[in-house]
């Protein structure tokens, strides 16, 4: 225990003496964090598939739609839900493409699972889920695939960048000079 404390103290001392050690540590941590973050889209996709399985089995654990209608009032018509679903799919895809183009770090995957679940529930209340199940599934799958791809490419690009910085740090003992971003 004492030896471990001594080692820790020695590392901290070494880090304060040599700034490249703390930079290296920061870069390594960042790479680890990016690797973890790159799986976020796949986790969201798995959760979406789970929600879709519940919808496929017609939400057997929920009370019948009539009970909800009796207490909450009539749901929107399936045509209205269809229009909103198209609008949502279109907006979500455009938003995802814009984020991809701008190279933004934005983790919005899990909220899309929530939106898709709401669509499933609205169709369930309107008793139109069997007819429109594949539309919601297609919309959710497309949006989440796009989000997964966006997050994965963002993380992959940044991991490559950080790895190159790490290699440069090992060679020269300092970080490379950041080039101005001409794309902005």
């Amino acid at each position: 225990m004492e030896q471990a404390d001594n080692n820790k103290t020695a590392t901290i001392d070494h880090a304060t003496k040599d700034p490249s050690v703390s930079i290296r540590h920061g870069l390594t941590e960042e790479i680890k964090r990016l690797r973890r973050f790159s799986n976020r889209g796949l986790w969201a996709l798995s959760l979406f598939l789970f929600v879709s399985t519940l919808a496929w089995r017609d939400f057997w654990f929920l009370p019948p739609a009539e009970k909800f209608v009796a207490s909450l009032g009539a749901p929107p018509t399936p045509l209205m839900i269809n229009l909103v679903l198209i609008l949502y799919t279109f907006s979500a895809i455009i938003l995802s493409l814009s984020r991809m183009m701008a190279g933004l770090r934005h983790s919005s995957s899990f909220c899309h699972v929530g939106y898709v679940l709401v669509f499933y529930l609205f169709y369930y209340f309107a008793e139109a889920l069997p007819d429109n199940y594949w539309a919601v599934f297609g919309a959710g799958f497309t949006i989440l695939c796009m989000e997964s791809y966006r997050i994965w490419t963002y993380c992959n690009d940044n991991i490559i960048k950080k790895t190159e910085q790490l290699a440069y740090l090992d060679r020269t003992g300092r970080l490379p000079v950041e080039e101005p971003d001409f794309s902005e």
Partner: protein
Amino acid sequence: MFDKIAGRALVPVGIVVTGFLVVCFVLLYSAIKNVVIHDSVGHANNLAGIVLKSTRYAMMKSDGELNSAIIKNISEQEGVQHVRIFNKKGVVAFSSKPEEVNHQVDKKAEGCVVCHEKAAPITSLKNMQKARTFTNSMGTNVMAITAPIYNEPECANAACHVHPASQKILGTLDIGLSQEGTLASLASIRIQMIIFSVLTLILTIAGVITLLKMIVLVPMQKLQEYTERSERNNTLSHPTGLPYELDKIAKSYYFIRIKLAEIEQKLCKENK
């Protein structure tokens, strides 16, 4: 695949176009299906109304033979699977299948339960509520309409048989129509839409691949070949045949190489 420009560009395009097309296809097909089914239910309701009007006179006269003849003739029409008239107690009074006559039907049976679900039966139904679909013993998909036969002043006041004026429903007509035609039309629409969607998808992806290759990939490959050739050979040629901004990049590269060669020559001379 994902390390190259083509892969990076085509994967999102493929996902977006395919996904959005599938969503629109399913929603459009669902809307068309609803319209077709509503339409066929409307036609079936009209037909049920025609049958009721045709049998009205025979019922007023309490002419069982004429009623049976009308029902038999209607049931011979192509697409009509069955015609039955039930009395108030749920007993089959007339049927296109003689063996069904005088048989009691359970009020909880499909087609009856819609009105008899609660203690006080419902006396008026909307068009869609009157319809039900099932597969009969011959394996045919059938859409059946259950139309109530309402008590009218002529019925209540008729001399031949007495229905009290307080009785709202005298019986029901149950007519079953084959859905094969409707389902065949829907299948045809579905196939046409799938073909249309697949063609649109192929054309979009092919268009993107062609434009990407023509505008980006081929010129990029030329630029790459030019830089690699310049690195191998000492004699540097002027870049030609590169379009758009790539020409400027190649020219910049050419002038940098020229400058570098000059500096190298100068250094060599100085060393000598």
